[in-house]
């Protein structure tokens, strides 16, 4: 049975359809979740997609973080369910304090949209086990508020515990501290990153197919669990 991966649609989500498509193309069963849902019982993992949920009002992710479905996502994440936050999803995970730190406006003060080179720093997560440490990959990056910031203690802890999962290569596009593009929680089941794996799963729409490994990683993790 193929694993069921839920994708939450908030008002203002943009990449929910691409995420659902990527799950299907990579061999999973996509399940649409709605921000007003009060359970995530039917799924094995959850993706919080990119976009501008609630219009980015107040702060990116600040209002979505309190959507009814998020109470369930937080509970499930704390119980070990794989959760992937892409772009706006990463911002929501930080606002929800499932991941430390915050994302602020790009230091370059423009919306950045490019094919971004990344270095894989950790494969000890449910979403990156199919990569190798030190591998260079390229994913689409597109955001206005992707500058990752955290206090010194948090950065030291993230670095020390191997929780920096992706780092920007060949130039820092947005002023992120330590060139951080993606981080995970202590347990490695919650991953947030600014670049978009779901846009990089077939030659038609992406510069690479490097996004596929995110999906195969979580499928393997879920298969091993059963």
């Amino acid at each position, binding site marked *: 049975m193929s694993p069921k991966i839920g994708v939450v649609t908030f008002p203002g989500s943009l990449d929910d359809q691409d995420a659902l498509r990527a799950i299907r193309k990579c061999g999973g069963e996509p399940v649409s979740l709605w921000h007003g849902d009060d359970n995530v019982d039917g799924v094995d993992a959850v993706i919080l997609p990119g976009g501008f949920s609630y219009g980015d009002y107040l702060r990116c992710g600040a209002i979505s973080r309190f959507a009814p479905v998020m109470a369930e996502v937080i509970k499930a994440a704390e119980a070990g369910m794989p959760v992937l936050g892409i772009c706006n999803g990463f911002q929501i995970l930080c606002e929800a304090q499932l991941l430390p730190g915050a994302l*602020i*406006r*790009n230091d370059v*003060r423009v919306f950045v949209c490019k094919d971004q080179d990344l270095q894989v720093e950790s494969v000890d997560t449910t979403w990156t086990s199919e990569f190798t440490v030190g591998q260079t990959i390229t994913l689409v990056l597109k955001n206005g508020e992707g500058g990752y910031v955290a206090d010194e203690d948090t950065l030291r802890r993230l670095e020390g515990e191997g929780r920096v999962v992706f780092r920007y290569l060949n130039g820092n596009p947005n002023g992120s501290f330590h060139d951080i593009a993606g981080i995970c929680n202590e347990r490695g089941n919650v991953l947030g990153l600014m670049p978009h794996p779901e846009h990089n799963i077939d030659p038609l729409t992406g510069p690479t197919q490097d996004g596929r490994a995110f999906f195969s990683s979580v499928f393997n993790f879920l298969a091993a669990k059963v």
Partner: protein
Amino acid sequence: MARVVVDVMPKPEILDPQGKAVTGALARLGFAGMSVRQGKRFELEFDGEVTEERLAEVRRAAETLLANTVIETFDVRVEPTPESAGAVDEAQNSQAGNNQAENNKAENNKAENNKAENNKAENNKAENSKADGSEAQSAEEAELAARAG
């Protein structure tokens, strides 16, 4: 009616790209030597008095939603409203206090009405520009005629 203001500012050590952009724009406009940091101001209005419990509740709201304390600081304060200022006067001279409040209300209403009028005018203009060229022209002619009249 009581008003509590919550000011939210990016922490000093956090880069403020918006403030930097505004700083740059001010310098280009000739406002030299000004360094800007940009924050947010929230006005929370309540019926009745601002009690300590109320303030504690506002602080909780600020911490929960209005500010992200990872990157921002916040400040909570009570702001006198025209009504509450009137209430202070009332203690000394009830007639004067009430008049002031009434006057303020009247002023506000007038401002509201003007805004509504302006909006209506804006809408009309938008409607006209949406219409095709000839109509827009005739609308313009009508306006000119009206002005001449």
